[in-house]
């Protein structure tokens, strides 16, 4: 079973988008009344629920090792470390492709900064989402999370993602409210 890191990052990216959009709705910004924003918020929420639902559905406690399921009535084989437990190597060409993908996304970001398709708040969100995708590619392949034990990516990514999302949820609504007050 492989925990889908991609689903995770979709949740994170769309979560940031959703929080920011929701904040705009609360603040009564110029975009708030449009149907598109409501759609994006609902879409983000739906994607988050689907992703976590999928992960929960695929969750298999026997992969946690014997300690985690002690007393749960599930009988499992004790988890024994394989001979070389840490490093499962991937093929080098995939790293070259990831590198090229990261460069392409960077180029898109630079172009977007000059095309300026939207105001600063929407640009902030677009750049954040692109950056989160890039961060996911770095964590998944370069930092090897995709090839580690699945539970490990939960342990390290989930707390950080939760803390950052909560931080965004506190700060951005207040920031947009300040903007509306018009200092």
């Amino acid at each position, binding site marked *: 079973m492989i925990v889908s890191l991609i689903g995770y990052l979709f949740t994170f990216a769309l979560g940031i988008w959703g929080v920011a959009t929701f904040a705009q709705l609360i603040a009564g910004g110029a975009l708030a009344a449009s149907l598109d924003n409501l759609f994006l918020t609902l879409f983000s929420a739906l994607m988050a629920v689907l992703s976590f639902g999928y992960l929960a559905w695929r969750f298999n406690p026997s992969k946690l090792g014997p300690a985690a399921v002690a007393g749960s009535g599930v009988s499992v084989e004790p988890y024994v470390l394989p001979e070389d437990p840490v490093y499962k190597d991937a093929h080098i060409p995939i790293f070259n492709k990831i590198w090229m993908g990261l460069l392409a996304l960077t180029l898109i970001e*630079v172009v977007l900064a000059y095309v300026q398709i939207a105001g600063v708040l929407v640009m902030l969100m677009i750049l954040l989402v692109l950056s989160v995708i890039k961060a996911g590619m770095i964590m998944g392949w370069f930092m090897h999370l995709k090839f580690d034990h699945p539970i490990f990516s939960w342990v390290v990514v989930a707390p950080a993602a939760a803390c950052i999302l909560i931080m965004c949820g506190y700060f951005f609504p207040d920031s947009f409210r300040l903007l509306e007050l018009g200092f």
Partner: protein
Amino acid sequence: MSEAHAAAAEPTWQGGGAPFAVGMKKFGMWLFIVSDSLTFSALLVAYSYVRAANDWPTPFHFFPSIVFASVMTLVLLSSSLTMVYGVSAAHHGARRAAVKWIWLTALCGLIFVALHSYEWMHLMRDEGMYPWENKYGSPLFGGTFFLITGLHMFHVITGIAYLSIVALGYRRGKWGAEDVEVAGLYWHFVDLVWMFVFPLIYLLSTNVD
């Protein structure tokens, strides 16, 4: 990892078992990365807060600022790739090749620091932008810029020192492939942070006129 094998036979509460199936060094580095990512995200969220709620200056011209920052991104991403090569070589036991790739990674880091220092010098000397004052408007602009890019540059310099020490120790046989991998994790994290600093700091303040 014979110690881990021996430990796996002991009861869990006596230290046996490895539920995450990674070495302790790697796990420790990941915990550090999680805490450090919260440091950076707090700074970046605070920056985004003042960026969204203020009349924010957009002084960065295409040349040199955006070009330099883009080249720095290219250099840092490439250094991540060479680090991946180094870790892969180390795990395949190709010691000389691994050391070569690690030195190349550190060299890319040095290029990054050199370019960034030149960019800072340009901003201070030619544009009159300082951490405490600037001619564009909000004094927070210079403060957040120099704080966030400075903290990142501090991480890069630390990473260069770390990689150099690991390269020397690994060549002497003092450390193994796992230590190279852990150093690589730190280096990739520095790269990852720049993926947020570059668009938020530079691209949201480009001068499009």
